[in-house]
């Protein structure tokens, strides 16, 4: 099972659901779903919980499996150094 946790960042600026995150000298712009995922994962959170929360907040994705969509968001955040994941 995959779990997700937000990493410490230098600063975060949120407006209208989107955000800018400053980490390791780089400013990343996060969409509304990515901003939500980061905010929910202050402690280790399972991918299933992230998926359920995204569906509850934004509705089911118009195409694709909700879990795969959530995994894509998490993967992008991980590549930007904003979250970390572990398989347990």
């Amino acid at each position, binding site marked *: 099972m995959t779990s997700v946790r937000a990493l410490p960042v*230098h*600063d*975060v*600026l949120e*407006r*209208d659901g*989107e*955000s*800018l995150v*400053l980490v390791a*000298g780089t*400013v990343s*712009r996060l969409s509304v779903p990515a901003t939500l995922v980061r905010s929910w994962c202050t402690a280790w959170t399972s991918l299933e919980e992230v998926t359920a929360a995204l569906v509850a907040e934004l509705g089911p994705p118009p195409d694709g499996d909700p879990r795969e969509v959530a995994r894509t968001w998490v993967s992008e955040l991980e590549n930007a150094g904003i979250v970390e994941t572990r398989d347990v």
Partner: protein
Amino acid sequence: MPSETRVPLRVLDTPVDLVLVGSPGLRDTLQARVHSAWHLALRAGEVPEPEAVVIEVELRAGPPEQGGYQRASLEVRDSDLDRLMMRLTHAVTAAAISAQSGTLLMLHAAGLAHARSGAASVWVAPGNTGKSTLCRTLGPRYAYLSDETVGIRRDGTVAAYAKPVSVRVPGRAVKDERAPRACGLRLPAVPARVAGLVLLARVAGHEGPPVVTLLPTLDAVQAVTPESSGFMSTDRPLTWLADVLESTGGARQVTYAEVRDLAPLAADIMGDP
């Protein structure tokens, strides 16, 4: 006769002592030029400040030297006076930015202010894209803060960097470090406070009056961040920058062809001169 001459400056809230060394005759020549070019940044009273950054400057005899140099060096030497002045500006800029990283919000921008109210306009743009031209064109009707870097304090007031105006000379690699007074520039009579921030987008073929667009906060912060210095050393810099923008009505982006066309926008931000 002393073996050095000290020229005390204050730039971006930073005391900087220029220590002029070398032969007395060349030192006198250098001192006259430095005093003239940096007249708005001279530290009043010449009171020694132990924490001042010291930059040693020498005008050498002989033919112009070849080779590179360190922009951030605390020693500047050259036998070409014009090039020495340009390199001195680079050294002072680097020293002040280094000293204020983490303290000031520093933006690569031209800064002008209303001479009596202190309402300041901050014109953000990369290097060599018109900041000095803007200061020389609009500045004489207002007051001068910088043609290079504007420092913003936590309380919204501006730390001036009233350096020489760096003017590109066609056909020359060395910029002319011109005394602000020679460009009709002076300091404001009261402390300057940010009243508006503009992102400059000069388009040579742009026709008609300037087009001004109000940027959403995230767009503006994202656009301004690359034109900042010491950002990562600053506590919550995204939030600070957003606070500055939102407390002054939001950042504007202006597309224009000629800087003189920006006079109405300058008046909109700072008030009529």
